[in-house]
């Protein structure tokens, strides 16, 4: 074999020829074939793969929708209706794309929650976690700009309200808002740039997802016990064990997705977005899409404009420092009796905030939003840092295989990080 070529183990001569020059097959085999994966995943570990598939669905439907969409204030609404009525299967593409955004957030919220519950953000996976938060932020920006494109009433007023958040910045706020708009109100230049960025950002997300997965494959996956695999008996090759398990989850996910798209396509939308945008009339009750409601509640919980904006952005940015706020060395909340309750309460607070965000800012909704906001931050800033010192975790199992197999036993330390041999 000529020097400089990759040593390929593949039998098929074509595959071998390519692999020797560009070892993509070896890479795929290593990362998705033999990749040693903890054997004790539960179905919550499906959600990363589901998120990846959803991203691809969104990009595919989005590209085909863009072939028929017109980013102009006079034509955007009509072009969307033309997609719904005249383009072959246009209604399907649009409903999959619109509901796909909701499904994407559901999946990612479960994915994040799984990370919170099983301590997937802790060393050595801090950077993996932070890349995930970057993906989440990019998703939010993409979803927000996508919602503006149909140019309905909620599109227009959502864009107006959210871009106006930046006017809270002292001194330069108003200039920034004008710059964002490309004018003195949300108008055609705004719609055009939002379309451009809405098309671009998903591909940026793909890039960060690639880094996210690359980082994952350095540290390996966390697992429901939160302890490191101690040898080959603790892991299984990714294929076929997790490819097939992910497939089961994927089909179940598609059933939910299909029910939403085919039978309740407008359930998660807002009727006002079927009214063409009118810059002179604000709808009586503006609400963002459901996935932004908790943050919207936090924004409104503070009676000060700048304070509300800062708190709202902090509620997500705080996730970046979470790996250092949680001082407990135990990852999985299965073994943290107090932290588990604290996290479940945090989950309740999240849903309470979601409800508050959907309500007019008055009466009980404001009180609940303040309590929810206080607890949301207290969990990260007070409870987690202190619990590391006060909480007494339950005894950890010796290894992953032990509670599963009742055998195995401790292995030499050298076997810990050795990848599984090819079967």
């Amino acid at each position, binding site marked *: 074999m000529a020097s400089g070529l990759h040593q390929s183990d593949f039998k098929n001569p074509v595959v071998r020829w390519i692999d020797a020059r560009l070892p993509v097959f070896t890479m795929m085999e290593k990362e998705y074939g033999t990749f040693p994966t903890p*054997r*004790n995943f*539960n*179905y*919550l570990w499906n959600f990363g793969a589901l998120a990846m598939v959803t991203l691809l669905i969104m990009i595919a439907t989005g590209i085909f929708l863009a072939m028929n969409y017109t980013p102009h204030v006079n034509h955007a609404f*009509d072009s969307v*209706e*033309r997609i*719904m*009525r005249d383009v072959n299967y246009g*209604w*399907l593409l649009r*409903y999959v794309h619109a509901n796909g955004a909701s499904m994407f957030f*559901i999946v990612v*919220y*479960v994915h994040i*929650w*799984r990370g919170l519950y099983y301590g997937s953000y802790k060393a050595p996976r801090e950077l993996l976690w932070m890349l995930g938060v970057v993906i989440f932020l990019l998703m939010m920006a993409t979803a927000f700009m996508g919602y503006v494109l149909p140019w309905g009433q909620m599109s227009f007023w959502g864009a107006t309200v959210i871009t106006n958040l930046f006017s809270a910045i002292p001194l330069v706020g108003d200039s920034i808002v004008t710059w964002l708009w490309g004018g003195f109100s949300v108008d055609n230049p705004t719609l055009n740039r939002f379309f451009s960025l809405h098309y671009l950002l998903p591909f940026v997300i793909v890039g960060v997802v690639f880094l996210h997965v690359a980082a994952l494959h350095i540290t390996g996956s966390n697992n*429901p016990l939160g302890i490191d695999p101690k040898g080959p008996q603790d892991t*299984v090759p990714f294929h*076929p*064990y997790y490819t*097939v*398990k992910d*497939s*089961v989850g994927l*089909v*179940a996910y*598609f*059933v*939910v997705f*299909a*029910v939403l*798209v*085919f*039978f309740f*396509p407008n*359930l*998660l939308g807002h*009727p*006002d977005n*079927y*009214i*063409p945008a009118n810059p002179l009339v604000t709808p*009586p*009750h503006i*609400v963002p899409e*459901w*996935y932004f*409601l908790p943050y919207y509640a936090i924004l409104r919980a503070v009676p000060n404009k700048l304070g509300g904006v800062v708190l709202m952005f902090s509620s997500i940015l705080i996730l970046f420092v979470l790996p250092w706020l949680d001082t407990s060395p135990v990852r999985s909340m*299965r073994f943290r009796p107090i932290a588990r309750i604290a996290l479940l309460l945090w*989950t309740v607070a999240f*849903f309470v905030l*979601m*409800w508050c965000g*959907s*309500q*007019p800012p008055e009466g009980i909704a404001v009180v609940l939003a303040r309590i929810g906001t206080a607890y949301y931050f207290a969990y990260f800033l007070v409870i987690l840092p202190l619990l590391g010192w006060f909480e007494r975790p339950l005894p950890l199992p010796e290894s992953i295989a032990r*509670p*599963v197999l009742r055998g195995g036993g401790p292995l030499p330390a050298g076997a810990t990080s050795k990848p599984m041999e090819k079967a």
Partner: protein
Amino acid sequence: MFGFRFSLRGGRSALRALAVAGGLLAASPALAAEGEIAIPNANFSFQGLFGTFDRAAVQRGFLVYKDVCAACHSMQQLYYRNLQEIGLSEAQVRAIAASVEVQDGPNDEGQMFERPGRPSDRFRRPFPNEQAARAANNGALPPDLSVITKAREGGANYIYALLTGYSDPPEGVTLMPGMSYNKYFPGHQIAMAPPLSGEGQVEYTDGTKATVEQMAHDVATFLAWASEPEMEVRKALGVRMVLFLTILGCLAYAVKRKVWADLH
């Protein structure tokens, strides 16, 4: 096993999150609309997972729209050709289109001109622009009805309730000049005068008696079709999709059990 039990619970809590999210959205308008009367269910043929549009009702509803609503309300997203989808023949559609004059042009002399409509024309607008519509309607803008059942909480039920919800104002309520009292309209004062009177307004060809309730029900059915013409195809495809995925899911689960069997 503790671990597995919890994973199940985790899965269920994810579902609950979805349900809560859905529930919130469904609940929020009801709560937001304090002081309004709940919209009754008008029992349409297209409700439910397998519901379809009652073609005869849609055709009658189109007649109501054409003879009553179209005087003020546009339906700009619809073309005359779309009427073939509700069971009218091509000749009937051509005749309906040809009965209106639409503007076309410019011609070779650079002038706009009027010509009889064609099936490929959009429904004719009653007013050339928003200002003209407002000027003719006491300052109020009659909304475009193309997607109206998707653009209002309650959909077709709301349309039916609104059209049948006119009454004299209760004691103590003073109406603004030119306004009518309607218990289902937000704020109860609506600029649209009661559009349906029932006395020979519309000549139904199939012998149905054109009462106010009947006309309201028919036109609400027509508007629901106009808003979601893809609904029947969508639901039929959905049923097949879910059945297919259920079988595929069972198969995938069986394969999963087989693959994992040698590990346990």
